């Protein structure tokens, strides 16, 4: 390739990548493989944040006196040879999909989550947690914990 | 009578001198320093060395950054067994966690300084201090941990690089001094491998004479691997280990090759044509050791890459013939062959 062609090639690569990056970020929340979403840490997070988590109600067939949220349950009930961030992203996906009414898409995530329970059967809820960002970090206090779905590992069909 | 004694003494002296000369000749032949001192006059070698050195300092920043990710592990190592080495003597006067923070942050800042000011001796000195402190911290938990030794030593050597960076002073004298320090770093790295190889040979001779399993036995490598894997927990194994345990012969030649590579490493310091091949061989050795025995010494690899793969002393015009002739043992054998041919022809 002659010099000028190379130059134009590179510059056009940049332009395409630039717009692709923004397009991807805008449409599908940075899900596209190979294209870097430009919007990493771009949006100032709202003061009232939302997260999704798992709450264990029954474990190993026994009903728990106090239902346990995922962060505390991780060490007890889950295969913790798998790193925490893996769980977080799977749980977030399940929660977001249910919240947006796209429960059809969560099959493989639910399956993966249930495979990681150390003992079954388990009854658990997907919980949407609302919190004040700074308060939550400081004290762990939440504003609202709302169960959006309940699953039982014994139920067929998932 | 008197004359006689002096004659005797003289004979004795000449004989002694003769032996000394022989030894000197042998040393200078095995370690032909002139090979490299010749190249030290070349400008291209100097230019190349000068582009390599900064990357050592850049790499240090990255090492420092990644070390800080390891911080929690260090904290967990425990205050209980914390026994500061002399470079962090001041740790006695501070809180344990403060010491750890200080050492890590200083390590990062020192290497950043070095990346920006590697041209100044003071900058290089600060880097040395940074890594010395970090290394001392790592070694303050009861066990000695030698993986990072080489970083300390090379950082120390590089302090002595003459400040010959600007285009203004590049007198042959400065060039030579710069390259000499650079060569010193190379020779030091190779020396470590040679020492390792030397012990293996010594042990092999001893074990062979005792009738034990030795490095030349066919199952030597599989004995190494199985002994190592027996110590490891069940879940941890190595990729190629089981294969070699099951087919011991597969491991025989590699082990011999490793001993050859390691033992003759120091010779290679004087044979620039072999620098890049030796680096490749030693990298393969490290990878192989990891895949079989599970022993990991990857901290040495940056030096093999930086200092040798594109060695400043390698003559870009060197031929394959030269390279092969420089090989220890094989080259010597080849060196005799043509001579004999010539004498035959005559």
């Amino acid at each position, binding site marked *: 390739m002659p010099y000028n062609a190379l130059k134009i090639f590179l510059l056009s690569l940049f332009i395409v990548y630039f717009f692709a990056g923004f397009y991807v970020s805008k449409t599908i929340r940075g899900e596209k493989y190979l294209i870097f979403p430009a919007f990493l840490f771009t949006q100032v997070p709202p003061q009232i944040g939302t997260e999704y988590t798992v709450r264990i109600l029954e474990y190993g067939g026994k009903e728990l006196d106090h239902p346990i949220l995922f962060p505390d349950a991780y060490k007890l009930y889950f*295969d*913790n*040879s798998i790193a925490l961030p893996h769980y977080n992203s799977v749980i977030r996906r399940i929660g977001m999909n249910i919240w947006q009414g796209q429960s059809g898409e969560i099959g493989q995530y639910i399956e993966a989550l249930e495979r990681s329970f*150390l003992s079954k059967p388990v009854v658990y809820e997907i919980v949407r947690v609302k919190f004040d960002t700074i308060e939550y970090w400081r004290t762990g206090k939440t504003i609202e914990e709302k169960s959006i779905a309940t699953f039982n590992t014994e139920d067929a069909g998932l | 009578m008197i004359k006689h004694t002096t004659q005797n003494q003289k004979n004795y002296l000449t004989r002694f001198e003769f032996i000394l000369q022989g030894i000197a000749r042998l040393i200078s032949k095995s370690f032909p320093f002139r090979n490299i001192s010749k190249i030290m006059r070349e400008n291209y070698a100097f230019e190349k060395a000068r582009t390599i050195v900064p990357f050592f300092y850049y790499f240090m920043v990255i090492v420092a950054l990644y070390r800080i990710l390891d911080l929690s592990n260090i904290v967990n190592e425990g205050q209980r067994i914390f026994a500061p*080495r*002399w470079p962090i003597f001041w740790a006695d006067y501070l809180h344990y966690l403060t010491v750890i923070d200080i050492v890590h942050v200083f390590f990062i800042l020192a290497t950043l300084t070095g990346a920006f000011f590697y041209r100044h001796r003071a900058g290089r000195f600060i880097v040395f201090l940074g890594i010395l402190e970090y*290394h*001392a911290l790592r*070694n303050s938990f009861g066990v*000695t941990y*030698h993986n990072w*030794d080489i970083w*300390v*030593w090379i950082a120390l*050597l590089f302090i002595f690089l*003459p400040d010959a960076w600007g285009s203004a002073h590049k007198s042959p*004298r400065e060039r*030579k*001094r710069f390259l*000499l*320090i650079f*060569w*010193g770093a190379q*020779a*030091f790295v190779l*020396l*470590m*491998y040679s*020492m*390792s190889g030397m*012990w*293996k040979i*010594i*042990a*092999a001779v001893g*074990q062979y004479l005792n009738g*034990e*399993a*030795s*490095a030349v*036995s066919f*199952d*030597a490598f*599989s*004995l*190494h691997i*199985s*002994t190592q*894997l*027996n*110590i*490891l*927990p*069940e*879940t941890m194994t190595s990729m190629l280990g089981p294969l070699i*345990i*099951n087919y*011991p012969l597969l491991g025989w030649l590699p082990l011999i090759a490793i001993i050859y590579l390691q033992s003759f490493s120091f010779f290679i310091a004087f044979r620039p044509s072999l620098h890049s091949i030796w680096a490749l061989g030693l990298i393969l050795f490290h990878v192989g050791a990891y895949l079989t*025995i599970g*022993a990991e010494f990857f901290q040495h690899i940056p030096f093999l890459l930086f200092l040798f793969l594109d060695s400043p002393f390698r003559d870009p015009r060197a031929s394959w013939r030269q390279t092969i002739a420089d090989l220890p043992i094989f080259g010597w054998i080849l060196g005799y062959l043509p001579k004999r041919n010539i004498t035959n022809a005559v």
Partner: protein
Amino acid sequence: MSLSHSLLEKLIVLFLVSYFVVGVYAHFYIINQEEVYLLYSWDLYTKVPPRIQTEFAILIHEFEGKRLENPIIFERARGVLYSSLTEYRHATYNKTNIQNIVRLLAPSILQDKTREIERLRMELEKTFLSHPVVYEVVEVTFNPIERWKNGRFININRLGIFTSQVF
């Protein structure tokens, strides 16, 4: 500071030679004591391990009241001694310590040093996750290749059997 070329040359050679000499010295004289900080002789994997090896080990006989059909050697005790993989890793991460304890415990059993035995047992049993564990300190003789392939030992010399307790 401006050293002349030839002086620098000598200094470098001196450095290399002294590192070598100190390394050799360290190899022969300080090998079994604590290693020297910053100096190393690089004697890694120097000797080919012998075909017949002996070492002190721990066999697990009984765990949480369950008697095991075939006693398991400590290294293979995952899922018996340690319920989760992480705990197991955590314990084996400090494995060298455990081995060091066993290395000290066995001789003190042989020499009948009651006090020392108590102390070392405490150290060891601290790492167990649940109690009681019935374990035996043994001296095993084995061929490393055979042992790795099918866990076979040539000889097991039993030193003493213990039941762990919470200290």
